[in-house]
């Protein structure tokens, strides 16, 4: 069962939970500050900084010009000085304009300095589609950033996880990319599914990276996923339960580090693996998970399937977007396929 269940009465949206942990860390540590586009007066396009300007003022909640190379790079520089910046770019799709600061500086300086320099920086951005905003505003790009050594990569799927992972991210001495799915934030203009709003303790707590969470236990098949697709997998599991199929849903919560053990343990129990990802299929999360399981315990695997975006940019029009972004039906279908693959 999820760790979050039965902890407290109070329920928060994912964005409120994130903001709560950021505010806590900012109160505790003067060195923590937040920089990004539309994070101050607007409170973040996706409510990721709602209310922080009031408490912390413009020196610590900084709006910046549309100059990603400059401000993401400046965050790297400040972090190397020992500050603890959180830098937000509203959509992960936009990181490309500042890619050098991310994949050559942020990710590599620790290594190239032989560990003498470290970069305690949190980079946040929204990911994901399902609202018809087309190819430049709908990507998840998990694979792109997880591929580069030196970046930790976190993807919460619930308010409880969002808070604990954020505490951890800010306290971590390494660069952490914290990618939140727009559809889970609980913003007014983009209705969320039921799942992400969860009880959240008022006190601070951390969720260690590399600890996948079994969001639903089951005996017949292991569904491994993250972000929005945790909820789609849970929906699929409910429908499948009506057919007598018992699916276990593993929420990875972080890709770097990746909790291979929890995945393996589940696959050893069920023998069947379905990996679900909202990123492009090739060279990505699905291939990586399957490879790790196959590497470590090929015998445990009776059948595998993957569900991901089929290597096309995310199309605008609804019928086509629905076609490429996996939904609960797609997951159910692949689960049935692994079950009949004997």
């Amino acid at each position, binding site marked *: 069962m999820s760790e979050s269940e039965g902890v407290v009465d109070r329920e928060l949206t994912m964005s409120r939970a994130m903001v709560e942990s950021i505010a806590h860390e900012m109160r505790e540590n003067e060195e923590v500050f937040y920089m990004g586009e539309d994070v101050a007066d607007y409170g973040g396009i996706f409510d990721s900084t709602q209310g922080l300007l009031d408490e912390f003022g413009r020196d610590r909640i900084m709006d910046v010009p549309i100059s990603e190379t400059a401000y993401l790079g400046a965050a790297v520089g400040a972090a190397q000085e020992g500050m603890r910046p959180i830098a937000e770019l509203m959509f992960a799709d936009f990181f490309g304009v500042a890619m050098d600061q991310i994949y050559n500086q942020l990710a590599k300086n620790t290594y190239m300095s032989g560990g003498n320099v470290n970069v305690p920086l949190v980079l946040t951005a929204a990911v994901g589609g399902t609202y018809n905003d087309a190819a430049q505003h709908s990507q998840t790009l998990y694979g792109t950033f997880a591929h580069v050594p030196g970046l930790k990569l976190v993807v919460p799927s619930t308010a409880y996880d969002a808070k604990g992972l954020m505490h951890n991210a800010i306290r971590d001495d390494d660069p952490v990319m914290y990618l939140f799915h727009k559809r889970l934030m609980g913003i007014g203009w983009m209705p969320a599914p039921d799942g992400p709003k969860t009880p959240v303790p008022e006190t601070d707590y951390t969720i260690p990276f590399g600890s996948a969470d079994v969001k639903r236990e089951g005996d017949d098949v292991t569904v491994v996923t993250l972000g929005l697709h945790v909820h789609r997998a849970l929906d699929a599991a409910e429908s499948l339960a009506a057919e007598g199929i018992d699916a276990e849903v593993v929420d990875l919560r972080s890709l770097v580090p990746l909790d291979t053990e929890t995945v393996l343990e589940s696959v050893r129990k069920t023998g069947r693996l379905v990996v679900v990802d909202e990123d492009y299929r090739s060279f990505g999360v699905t291939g990586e998970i399957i490879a790790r399981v196959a590497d470590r315990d090929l015998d445990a695997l009776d059948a595998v399937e993957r569900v991901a975006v089929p290597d096309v940019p995310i199309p605008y029009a609804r019928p086509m977007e629905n076609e490429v972004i996996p939904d609960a039906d797609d997951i159910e279908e*692949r689960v049935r396929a692994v079950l009949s693959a004997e």
Partner: protein
Amino acid sequence: MVSVGKMRELYADMVTARYYEERLQEEYLEGKQPAFDISAGPIPGELHLAAGQEAAAAGVCHHLRPDDTVTAPHRPHHVAIAKGVDLKRMTAEIFGRKTGLGKGKGGHMHLFDPDVNFACSGIIAEGCPPAAGAALAAKKRNEDAVAVAFLGEGAIDQGAFLESLNFASVHDLPVVFVVEDNDWAISMPKERVTDVEDGSDRAAGFDMPGVRVDRDDALAVYEAAGEAVGRARDRNGPTLLEVQVHRRMGHFMGDPQAYRSDEDEEAALARDSIDRLESELRDHGVDDDGLAGIREDAEARVEEAIAWAKEQPQPAPEDAHDDVFVNPPSGVTTDEPEFELAEVNGDE
């Protein structure tokens, strides 16, 4: 002096763009009420409207030919209309239909009409380098086509813009960079993104002419753009042209604009370039009937485009897999069948 005939043409494009966006707004809100849901209704996704910016588009694009290239940013409709993009197919694209400019794949921020060399991008300032590239192509081929990149004042801090200015200047490219200064970049007022009041001053750093038109005045824009485009066409290199416009609405539909003062919004509404041009036209003898005639024609054109677009077929789900390449590698499909582990293992 701008001729009355030209004034009427500018006015026609401006009222077409304004009316078009009013109608898009209505269509967009359908199905999104009572609780605004961005993915509901006949036009989902974000919608950035350009009400208040029409003078910039009309004033510049009226110097352009179909073989001249325009790149527009995320707020593209007024520019597209002034450049002569096919209104019906553009509308069909915004409604996500199969016969849209991009077969429903691009949507409103990503309109491509190669017939009139129009393209846009939702990534800030990223239209600048391709515009320089179109100008480079014209120069290499010894053609007198020019290129124009439109961007907002919030985009002028972006590397892609500044690098393009330098590149265009060093290579004497026939390109005009048009900055539409609407005072806002989402919630950021201009004075908080730059310490230099006139964006056009940046041109000096690249040894190119920088011109600012600080009124919402289609005629002043038309004249300034005439020089800039003429300079490019005559092979005298690039120009940076900044044009004051106003944002009459939120950044995107659904933006509550809590960050913006009422006075600022009212001031923007009061400075209307369409009103301004109307009074110019009246001064030049165009009466109510004349103005109404132009507006009615524009409205009819818009209604026709919207009606046509709404009758167009939806794309089929499978269409999503086409057009990743124009030359798809044979034997590879984007939805390849899954392999069966049992077969791979050979243990069955």
